């Protein structure tokens, strides 16, 4: 019996080893491909979901818009109402400062002094001009004292006097230009008047 010599034994061993490695790599690659395919399915599913969701949201928007448009008349009326109210609140604010000044100056000098003129038409919106009238010079003196009283200057620190005149009947008139402070926290006018008188 003849003895056989295997010349490719080493080569076969190396080939088997390489093939084992190839199989391992192939298994890894299969897993990678499956994973990637799963990811692809997930991403595609998400996309389809979002397409559907977006379509639903847009459809809902269209419906709500249609409802809103059916309330157009109310919306228009309400917006005009709110705008008008806004304008009125500005007017009220401006007028309130002037009215407070008028009430203050018609009370602060006492009953025998009358505010005979008011001018709101100054270019400067914060200035009001009053013309006050007194029956005699003694009352006018009292007016001057009242104007210098700290209780008056506390509320209206900027008062300028001008155009004092005397009529034939002895009445005195005086013009007062009052700069309205930004925030007027009026002290009680009655107590001020009592204190001065």
């Amino acid at each position, binding site marked *: 019996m003849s003895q056989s010599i295997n010349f490719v034994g080493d080569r076969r061993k190396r080939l088997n080893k390489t093939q084992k490695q190839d199989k391992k790599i192939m298994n890894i690659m299969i897993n990678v491909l499956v994973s990637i395919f799963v990811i692809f399915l997930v*991403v595609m599913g998400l996309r389809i979901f979002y397409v559907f969701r977006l379509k639903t949201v847009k459809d809902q928007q269209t419906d709500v818009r249609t409802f809103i448009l059916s309330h157009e008349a109310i919306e228009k009326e309400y917006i005009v109402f709110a705008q008008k109210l806004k304008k009125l609140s500005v007017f009220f604010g401006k007028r309130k400062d002037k009215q407070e000044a008028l009430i203050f100056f018609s009370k602060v000098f006492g009953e025998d002094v009358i505010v005979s003129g008011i001018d709101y038409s100054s270019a400067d919106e914060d200035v009001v001009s009053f013309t006050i009238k007194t029956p005699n010079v003694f009352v006018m003196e009292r007016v001057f004292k009242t104007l210098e009283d700290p209780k008056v200057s506390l509320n209206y620190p900027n008062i300028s006097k001008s155009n004092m005149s005397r009529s034939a009947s002895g009445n005195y008139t005086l013009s007062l230009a009052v700069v309205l402070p930004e925030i007027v926290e009026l002290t009680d006018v009655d107590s001020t008047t009592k204190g001065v008188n």
Partner: protein
Amino acid sequence: MKNNKKPLNIEMIITNRKQMLISVVLGVVSFGLVFLAIIPQFQEFWTLKSELDKEIPRLTKLKQKLVELENIQFTPEFAQSEIVNNALPSKKPLLELLSSLSSIAAESSVQIKDFDLNPGIIASDTAELQAYYAKKLSKDGIDTLDISMNAVGSFENIQVFLINLEKISPFTTINTLSLNSSVRGDDFNEQELNMLAKLTTKSHFFTQTVSAAIEAPLPILSFKEQNVLEELASFSSSDLPEQLEIKGGGLEDLFGVDPINFE
């Protein structure tokens, strides 16, 4: 020089390294799947997500606006819209002002004399009107009807008249006022009984063009504006019916001339 490089034996590679070749093919497919399918799909998904993130708040706003619109008509504030419309009408309030003035003068026993008003631009060429509106009205959305008048009465009555004058609809403010006695003499008390108030007033009306986007929320009334509503509730307004048509208009033959017939 002898070339030692062996030629590539494809058949042998296919036979012996079949799995490696499959791995390469799988790698190429994976690569292709990532770059040709997953990345574009993901980009598209991300765009959709961003768009949805924008659209959902928009839908919420629209829904909220719809709820507001459905509820707003039942709010006590909006129920007073007629008072606000009377105080600041959207047209020149000439008849309403005259009616209100007449009623407060009668209430305070004051006589109105030398009434003078400038109704402003009533009609003009279209171009001039457009220029007028563009210049004047778009500024603050308010126009005024200026009036000057003399009020005669006792000092107390004039005081009541002046207080009431600023509580009428349309919203009217005193611009200038001068008080004088209409009698001469030394008696201060007699002078107070016969006072003459010369005053100019401004009555306001609304001319603003208002626009709103469908998605814009409804304006919210501030505390200050709610206080104004309370103050407006005490305002007196005329009950004049709104005139929507011109009555008369040449139906009557003022001269009574028979029509001329030509034969």
